[in-house]
């Protein structure tokens, strides 16, 4: 294998060959190679967060007409390193009455749950941790483990604000998992497999975001809610509340939650790019596998950029609005979408692929337009009800109740 065309795959092959050359049995070679791969991938992903934090702060700064970090190193690149060193030296404070086991387990579990997601994602044609035949299900199941860490953190800190924050967070995560799973079923139906590698391979002709734009939209919204980014950041709500589940954490234990949050945000972008944007696919990616890795990173950064744009521009939801969006719009829409896609796929089974794709796109756009109309009607009705209350009885506004003269 050529080193220049596929450096990562080349190194992996060389390493496995070297291990086998030491005279170890084949089973042990496999175990050691996988363990090393996991170690390298996890360390690389966690170090990558240093760059992500800088990137996000810089972008948010630009959106808000600031410079962002610009003092430490060129363009402020070393700012996260300085912050990291600072957080290493801080004192660990364990609150009185905290459940030590749960309190200390939570940050580890939070990072581990995110790192586990990387184990089934194909990074290029030749580099993939494990090709599970239930890969997509694995992604969702492991994502659920993260919720456990937030509960443990909230409960273990012996603080009622942390507990309330954990309740709010887990309520949001469990709710948005429903449309997330349902919309992820659409690519599974189109690819005919649960394996992530298989889903990437099935997008050879056309990306799934083109075939199923509605599913991609639901998946994107639900994954933003899963990572608790604005406009779904009412679990943190820095400007209104005292943080949330992680209020009692200090030093590196807080840092672990911080790393988990940033890495999760990047990882869901990676999952979106893999499932809907064709993963490592691109011109020439099969002949030169390293190009596939570059394509995947480009796609991921485009998705990540959009989530940061959301974070920098959209105001926060109220909790009832957030729940309404999930249970009254996204969940019914994704259920209807699955049924409509199945029917459209069944009816156009014998047609050429072009007409199949057209049918899928038509179904998606129709459902999106219908949802939009229904939401508009509901809003108009609500406005009418509010108006009726307004004319029926005079509303006490703050100015009449506590006027300036009082």
């Amino acid at each position: 294998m050529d080193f220049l065309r596929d450096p990562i795959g080349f190194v992996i092959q060389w390493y496995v060959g070297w291990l086998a050359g030491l005279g170890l049995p084949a089973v042990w070679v496999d175990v050691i190679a996988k363990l090393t791969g996991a170690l390298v991938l996890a360390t690389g992903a966690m170090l990558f967060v240093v760059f992500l934090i800088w990137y996000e702060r810089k972008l948010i700064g630009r959106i808000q007409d600031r410079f962002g970090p610009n003092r430490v190193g060129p363009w402020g690149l070393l700012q996260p390193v300085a912050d990291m060193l600072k957080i290493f030296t801080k004192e660990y404070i364990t609150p009185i009455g905290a459940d030590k086991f749960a309190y200390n387990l939570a940050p580890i579990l939070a990072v581990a749950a995110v790192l586990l997601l990387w184990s089934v994602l194909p990074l290029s044609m030749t580099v993939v941790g494990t090709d599970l035949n239930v890969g997509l299900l694995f992604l969702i199941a492991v994502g659920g483990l993260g919720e456990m860490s937030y509960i443990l953190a909230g409960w273990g800190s012996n603080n009622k604000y942390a507990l309330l924050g954990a309740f709010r967070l887990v309520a949001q995560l469990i709710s948005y998992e429903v449309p997330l799973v349902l919309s992820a079923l659409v690519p599974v139906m189109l690819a005919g497999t649960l394996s992530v590698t298989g889903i990437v391979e099935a997008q050879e002709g056309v990306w799934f975001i083109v075939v199923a734009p509605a599913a991609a939209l639901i998946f994107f919204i639900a994954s933003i809610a899963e990572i608790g980014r604005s406009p779904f950041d009412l679990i943190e709500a820095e400007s209104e509340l005292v943080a949330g589940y992680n209020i009692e954490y200090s030093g590196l234990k807080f840092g672990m939650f911080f790393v988990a949050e940033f890495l999760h945000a990047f990882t869901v972008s990676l999952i979106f790019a893999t499932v809907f944007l064709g993963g490592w696919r691109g011109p020439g990616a099969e002949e030169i596998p390293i190009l596939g890795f570059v394509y995947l990173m480009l796609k991921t950064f485009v998705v990540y950029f959009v989530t940061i744009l959301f974070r920098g521009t959209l105001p926060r939801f109220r909790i009832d609005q957030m729940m309404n969006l999930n249970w009254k719009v996204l969940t019914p829409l994704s259920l209807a979408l699955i049924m409509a896609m199945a029917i459209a796929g069944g009816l156009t089974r014998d047609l050429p692929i072009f007409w199949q794709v057209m049918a899928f796109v038509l179904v998606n756009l129709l459902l999106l337009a219908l949802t939009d109309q229904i939401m508009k009607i509901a809003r108009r009705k609500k406005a009418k009800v509010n108006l009726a209350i307004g004319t029926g009885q005079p509303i006490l506004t703050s100015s009449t109740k506590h006027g300036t003269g009082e």
Partner: protein
Amino acid sequence: MNGLQAVFLLAALVSLFSAAMVVSARRMMHAALWLVLTLMGVAVIFVTLQSSFFAVVQILVYVGAIAILIIFSVMLTRRVMEDHGDQILPGWRGAALVVVLLFAVLVGFLALWQGFTALLVELPPEADNLLELGKALVSPQGYVLPFELASVLLVAALIGAITIAVDRKEERGG
């Protein structure tokens, strides 16, 4: 003993030990966490049986949903659910006898069942066991009837939950 057997033994020991801890832990929260470990151990056993689908569904449903709901309800009852008294009931000998008898009866009847001793058919290497499972669940020769019955049961449970949770207008008016 090969590696697979070692993993199986380890997973079985961990799940049995944590299952014992579920009933003997003094704090409800710790019992719930031990339960999570037990369920994870069962998932590992599914993996050693090459049934990755069941392993992932075990984590998705039992750890991701049911254990989280249990922990959710335990969190609401902090301090109330702590046990300080003696953990062994006075009549534990009778209980142990009943448990042993029940276990013997269950194993005895299972041994009589012909599926218990039937040899498993190995799938051809190119077959996807997930695909075979999916086909078996919807084929009339397979498990379509139990599958549909379970679905009806779940729908009934859903409707029941909604009926309980909905606040009726006449009650509110009165």
